[in-house]
């Protein structure tokens, strides 16, 4: 139990009559990278939204970091240590890299409530350290996000999640809108996170990427988890079969 970072039990979400997520049982261990796959509308994003507190679940339980949790919002989840890179990149275009990294949790020199003086030097230093740690390449920290490529933006978003001693990183299709080189850059960051032993949930449609990066693959179909497979026990065709429904039933991971 102690090395389980995240565990859900019978996690369920209904939108009116739509059963978007049904009794999802999920576990993530320390240092483990897990991919969530599935067709559009299979319940992947719904699952992520329940864990990160963006939405409130209909039923079920969530344990995070050894405690049962009930996040009332994404901020609470973040404070508990769940960092999420959202599909729509929650970055402020007109701010530079350090400002975005520390948005909402700025380092301050003097605490004067809302008029607290920012510690810009410390934030810049911490940003440089974070970028080095995640191997993110940004030519100029002082330029605004507006001036950056999609890949660089994604890297900043990812570096932000990795900057803060997070206990779990969730990425929702981090490379969906990126080119080949930019995708490679983001994948390198994910590998770096793996080396650093930071657990990760990766929502992705990219089969090659999933097999390159993660340890375990969980397949969602019609709101249910239909497969939970170690990478070495499966292959692309197998996964596709689960995604499309050609193969059914719950393929459970053998208890190690």
């Amino acid at each position, binding site marked *: 139990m102690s090395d389980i970072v995240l565990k859900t039990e019978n996690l369920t979400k209904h939108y009116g009559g739509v059963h978007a997520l049904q009794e999802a049982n999920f576990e993530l261990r320390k240092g483990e990278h897990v991919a969530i796959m599935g067709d559009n509308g299979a319940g992947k994003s719904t699952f992520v939204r329940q864990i990160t507190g963006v939405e409130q679940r209909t039923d079920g339980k969530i344990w995070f970091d050894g405690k049962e949790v009930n996040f009332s919002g994404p901020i609470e989840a973040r404070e508990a240590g769940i960092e999420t890179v959202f599909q729509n990149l929650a970055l402020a275009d007109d701010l530079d890299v350090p400002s975005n990294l520390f948005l909402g949790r700025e380092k301050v020199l003097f605490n004067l409530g809302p*008029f607290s003086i*920012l510690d810009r030097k410390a934030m810049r230093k911490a940003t440089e350290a974070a970028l080095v740690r995640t191997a*993110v390449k940004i030519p100029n920290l002082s330029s605004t996000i507006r001036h950056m490529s999609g890949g660089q933006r994604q890297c900043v978003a990812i570096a932000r999640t990795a900057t803060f001693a997070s206990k779990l990183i969730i990425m929702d299709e981090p490379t969906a809108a990126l080119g080949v080189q930019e995708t490679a850059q983001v994948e390198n960051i994910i590998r770096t996170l793996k080396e650093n032993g930071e657990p990760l949930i990766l929502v992705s449609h990219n089969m090659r990427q999933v097999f390159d990066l993660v340890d375990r693959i969980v397949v969602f179909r019609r709101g249910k988890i239909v497969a939970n497979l170690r990478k070495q026990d499966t292959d692309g065709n197998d996964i596709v079969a689960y995604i499309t429904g050609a193969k059914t039933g719950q393929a459970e991971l053998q208890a190690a």
Partner: protein
Amino acid sequence: MSQSSHGIGGLSYDAKKRPWPAEFNVFLALVILVAAFELIGRVFLGDSFLFNTRENVSGLFNEQRLQIIILQVSIVGIIAIGVTQVIICGGIDLSSGSIVGATAMIAMSFAQVATVNGNPNPKAMFIDYGLTDLPVIVPLLVAIGCGLIAGLINGLLIAYTRIPPFIATLGMMVTARGIAKWWSKGQPISFPTDSFAAIGKGLMPVVIFISLAILFQLILTYTKYGKHCYAIGSNEDAARMSGIKIANHKVLVYAIAGILASLAAVVLSSKNLTAQAGMGVMYELDAIAMAVIGGVSLSGGRGSIIGTVIGSLIFGVIISGFTFLRLDAYYQEMVKGVIIVGAVVLDQWRQRRRAIGA
């Protein structure tokens, strides 16, 4: 940390090729405008716009004109500081001109003297209650209170009912103007105490304007409040996801804008030694125009107080320039309108070019 020639991760980066600040373009526009008036003056009037041409006055520059340029924009400039942070935060404030009117009336009625030339002050509103010859702090606090209340109402409406800032502040604009007229049933309120009259005397409006501009430039650059203004104006969803309390911040932004409008009202009524219900009409639009000319983006997230100050100077130069060229005031308004639209078009164009370049 000094600017290094290479960026994080070894990518090359030329520090010299950084885009220059938008304020520089605005300043360039100001210089060109002054040069144009100077040129037209020399050619058609045989007189200088900027330099001193009178023998009986010493000095290189025409100091009187320079003073007038900045003095006539100082009061609207104070409002423009508040409006700038509202626009950076992604909002708009149409109520500031009416807040000036209402605040001027209410504050002035607490700043009146009891006797004028030995006779009881005919205009004193609260003479029966003995509320005359009050220390200057009383009308000042009353004014700040008025601005604060108006700003809070704006902010609370926008933050909690989620109605567009345009509508909320439009409502306040009409309401506050009504209050200004109702307060003394349309009568002007005059004869302030000497200490109240001192606030707007001589170049005091300029001093107050510049001090507030410096203060707010520092606040917007170096504090959490400023950073969050830019963040909310830039991407409100991102700011919310980052844990910024959007509603609280917006209330604060509009409250500060209200207070700045009320300070402008104090300076204006003190300078004019009277308060009238029609005071501050169109000031809100002039203030917005100064900000927009100064490079503050109406879509939020970009701009600075320095830009707005330069924008206000452009405003002042245009007004003085037209007077200098002995052109009718009608033309001023027409040209002002063209310049406002031109500034927004330029901003849009710059944005599009940047988007393509990225």
